[in-house]
């Protein structure tokens, strides 16, 4: 049996090679994929989030931890799907139409995945219809919209309105974030919540799916 304590350590320290190797060994030793996620990856990413919140970690460290967590998840994810295990929630995430900025969105996606959510990442410059199609076909209960530019913030409203028009607004909770976005703006465009940071976004997502 591999030393499984090395998995959260590798995620927290941002060592993706060790994270992948320990995960492989754990699976080979019969550890369930669900246990790898819930007992090791989720607490590790919670610790990364805590360090970010208290400014012990910054963007580079977050990116390294996210990469390590993903290296483990890439091994675990297909096995998890095969067992039929239900995630905490299913999130469709993307940067809205017209906006190519994705670092903040990627960090939120990683933290959500590390928080036990299934994340369907549509990338950047995502048209409203793509959010709608992904949410419908993947049975998402959360949609997360990101924007960095003031000129693309209105695309958030356009996307929310498109969910209304498609008759899907009541089926999903929509959260928004990005540097120029505020709680006030989120309320004005009819979003269900605003996440000021990647860790705040995870807390918000957990609250929204529990509501």
């Amino acid at each position, binding site marked *: 049996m591999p030393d499984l304590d090395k998995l959260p350590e590798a995620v927290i320290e*941002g060592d993706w090679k060790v994270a992948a190797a320990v995960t492989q060994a754990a699976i080979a030793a019969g550890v369930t994929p669900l246990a790898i996620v819930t007992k090791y990856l989720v607490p590790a990413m919670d610790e990364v989030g805590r360090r*970010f919140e208290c*400014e012990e970690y*910054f*963007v*580079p*460290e977050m*990116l*390294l931890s996210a*990469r390590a967590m993903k290296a483990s998840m890439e091994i675990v994810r297909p096995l998890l799907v095969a067992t039929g295990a239900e995630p905490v929630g299913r999130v469709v995430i993307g940067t809205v*139409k*017209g*906006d*190519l*900025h994705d*670092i903040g969105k*990627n960090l939120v996606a990683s933290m959500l995945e590390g928080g036990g959510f299934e994340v369907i990442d549509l990338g950047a*410059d995502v048209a409203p219809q793509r959010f709608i199609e992904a949410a419908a076909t993947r049975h998402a209960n959360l949609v997360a919209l990101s924007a960095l*530019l*003031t*000129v*693309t913030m209105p*695309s958030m409203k356009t996307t929310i309105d498109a969910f209304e028009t498609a008759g899907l607004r009541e089926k999903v909770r929509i959260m928004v974030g990005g*540097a*120029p976005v*505020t709680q006030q703006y989120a309320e004005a465009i009819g979003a269900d919540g605003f996440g*000021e*940071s990647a860790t705040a976004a995870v807390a918000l997502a957990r609250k929204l799916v529990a509501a």
Partner: protein
Amino acid sequence: MNPSPAEGLPPCAWRCSRAISRLLSQTNVSSRERLRTALDHREPDRIPLDFGSTAVTGIHVSCVAALRHYYGLAPEPVKVHEPYQMLGLVEDDLRAAMGLDVTGVFSRKTMFGFPADNWKEWDFRGLDVLVPSDFRIRTEPNGDILIYPEGDETAAPSGRMPMGSAFFDTIIRQPEIDDEKLDPADNLEDFGPVAEEDLAHLERAARAAGGSGYGVAATFGGTAFGDIALVPAPFLKDPKGIRDVTEWYMSTRTRRPYIHSIFERQCEIGIQNLARIHARIGDKVDCVFLCGTDFGTQTSAFCSVGTFRELWFPYYKRVNDWVHANTAWKCFKHSCGSVERFFDSFIEAGFDIINPVQCSAAGMEPAALKRKYGSRLVFWGGGADTQKTLPFGTPREVREEVLRRCEILAPGGGFVFNSIHNLQAGTPVENIVAMLDAVHQFNGVAHA
């Protein structure tokens, strides 16, 4: 993209701005004196204003067009002198109409590696503008616009402007990274001895700017050290080394010796270039925009103060020390976001000026910044918020914010009025004019 019609403005606003323009022309203090006084932390006759002197204090081309229309200037297409951010050139007639005090000396080449000259017409999604002749693009079926480095259509495009945006963003061209073969020289292709044609351009531009009566901010390039906008090198046809933004950020943690090697050599080249430039232009410019590396995010920072001091500080100090020992230039540092924690280090490294003073970020409350750093650091910016108030607020809200900021930041000098970063596309011209009128009104009340 079409300029807002001046006819839509209240007649009083129209008349007020013109009256101010006339008033501003009647002064005994030159703009250059005003800027220099402010940079020396003495209170000038009025707050100097800058819009358009650098690529971080500029105006989107659509807003320049709207302002030209508002002020009733010749309806000629605006030059896009920096296509990456689609910044419009502020010509002398607009500078005078807006009551500005600073002009710019820019590098010969744009962010996409071609010279900003030989202008040609371009229909920018309904707005007639002028772009450099080497501005070569391809429009995708979905309306996205791709742009080519050095105007070379045989190279892979290095920038994309999606439909719905008004700016280019860099296309990441990251070759596969083999850590065994990583060579700092690959990340140094951007930094070489300044060419004679660049020196000649800077000499001409500095002579013209220096004789204009305006204060002069110059941009030479090469001394930012890891500016994330420059790392992907949209100006190179075939960038090598670490060019992916995420990979670069991670490398500041995992490949620190490699980054130090780049910075070390970049520092040597940068100082040699500054010496050659200074030999040609002397002190015709008042300040130099040396560094645009962002250390702040909206709510936090990109690194700890400890990391900053280990990885960046020594190089900034060497550059700034050289500038202070050999020129009369002031050293201008740009960093967005929540960066108050770095201010003591910026000052110790020799930076004289901080921009854009993002008061909307965490820990950037203007009164506290002025109290703690106002006698040691010039605030070039912070005058009006470009994330909320200017694009989405009312003219009254803009005016109130501007007057508050002026009251806080102006006393004792050390303040150059500018919004928090460039005026963004989509900003109503009424709000821009409300901002300018508020500064002029403040200046009239306090200093007339």
